[in-house]
């Protein structure tokens, strides 16, 4: 039960994009088409889950026993960067069109603060290994949900009569703000 609550908390109540405002860069950059937004969400989810696992192991098996916790930022960033390289090679091999659609935003998962944030939150909240995995899956699912919703809305907005100064990024940021407003209703629902 606790694990399910952690999942829901990370995915909906404390959604990384709409409640913590982390990972805004790909959220704005790749959300113009659902066909690229959803795979982007999956790629981020994959990186998040593996990051949660590897950084938990590094933190508890290496950093804490050898008393070098001050290295956590450096080591976490190293883990994230190499994982993203791995995902990039995988997607390039499996689907060239998807690789081209994601473009620069695929290597930029490295600098997606949501992922480093996830690793640091896991340390901060003192999660156990299994809890950390559920937290990673939840955070990824939440990111996928947010970016897919945004992509659906933006495809709809392409037909809308948005005044010219607001077209593109401005209206996207405004929609993101309204989405965050809608997600405020979940505030205080779960405190894990």
């Amino acid at each position, binding site marked *: 039960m606790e694990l399910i609550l952690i999942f829901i908390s990370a995915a909906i109540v404390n959604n990384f994009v709409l409640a913590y405002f982390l990972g805004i860069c790909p959220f704005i950059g790749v959300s113009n088409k*659902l066909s690229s937004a959803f795979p982007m969400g999956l790629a981020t989810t994959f990186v998040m889950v593996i990051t949660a696992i590897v950084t938990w192991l590094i933190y508890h098996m290496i950093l804490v026993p050898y008393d070098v916790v001050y290295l956590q930022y450096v080591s976490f960033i190293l883990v994230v960067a190499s994982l993203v390289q791995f995902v990039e090679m995988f997607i390039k091999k499996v689907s060239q069109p998807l690789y081209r659609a994601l473009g620069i935003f695929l290597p930029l998962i490295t600098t997606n603060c949501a992922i480093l944030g996830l690793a640091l939150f896991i340390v901060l909240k003192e999660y156990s290994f299994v809890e950390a995995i559920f937290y990673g899956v939840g955070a990824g699912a939440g990111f996928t949900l947010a970016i*897919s*919703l945004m992509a*659906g*809305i933006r*495809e*709809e*907005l392409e037909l*809308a*009569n*948005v*005044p010219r100064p*607001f077209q593109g990024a401005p*209206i996207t940021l*405004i*929609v993101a703000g*309204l*989405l965050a*407003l*809608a*997600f*405020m*209703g*979940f*505030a*205080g*629902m*779960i405190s894990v």
Partner: protein
Amino acid sequence: MSDVTVTEAQNERELMLSTSPHLQSRWTTKQIMWFVNLALAPCVISAVLYFGFYQLLVIATAVIFAVGTEALIQKLTKKPIAVMDGSAVITGLLLGLIVPPNFSLVSTALGSIFAIGVGKMIFGGLGYNIFNPALVGRAFLQAAFPVAITTWTAPNYAVDSVSSATPLAALKFDGVSTAVGPLFFGNVGGSLGETSSIAILLGGIFLLVTGVANWRIPAAMTIGVIVFGGALWLIDPSYPSPIFHIFAGSFLFGAFYMATDYVSSPITGVGMWIYGLGIALVLVLIRVFGGLPEGVMYSILFMNAFVPLINRYTRPRIFGEVKS
């Protein structure tokens, strides 16, 4: 030469070319909008009856600023000024009816400006908004004035405000339940238009009978609340009962006037059922487990965001289309 021109002119008059689907509606958009305004009249009357004449001022402020903002933006963007279609009046009326009694007029005006400006006109005006504009305004007020918007005045005390809890807050924070009778007639604390179930049902049934509002969305929401709320109630009877869920708070108001908004609700029948059930699920979760006593506004806004995806995946197959 002149003969040809005449024939062409005649053809233009006789043949009207348009692409399918060739659907016809009994009413124009303008007529529908004014029907909704008419249907809101009982709620306005109940608001004045229970909370005093000052509320008429609140509602009028909301309407005037909604219409004014829309007209101003249409003038600035050099579009035809179309405020007489009544849609801005609806937004103003709805917003005026979902603020607490004796709410400050300045805040009401700000809510109206935000609702029309950011909730509607920025997307291109009528027909393009993703979220229900009145709810956007209300959510803005909730975020900007969290204390003022949850200060409830007891009914029948027009000037000297006697604060009172809403039935949902009373149950959630103090464990005090309210009988169905006062909930039905509206003699309880709450937002202006939401307290009187009978006034809402009067207007709501008018909308359903005339076909202005689609019956599927209120039906799906009611069934959803009975199922989800009932299941939790059976597990633990200290949770609100399904009847309480329906008659307390702004469930009925949201079901009839907010969720049925044409622009921000799905267009397919199946989509409407998914949308209504989704609102009910989120609503029950917020009311039972959330930090806030009421969740109608947030649950509708939340499902508004899903509408483009719902429309996309419930689109009926085109006749003759082959599954790929």
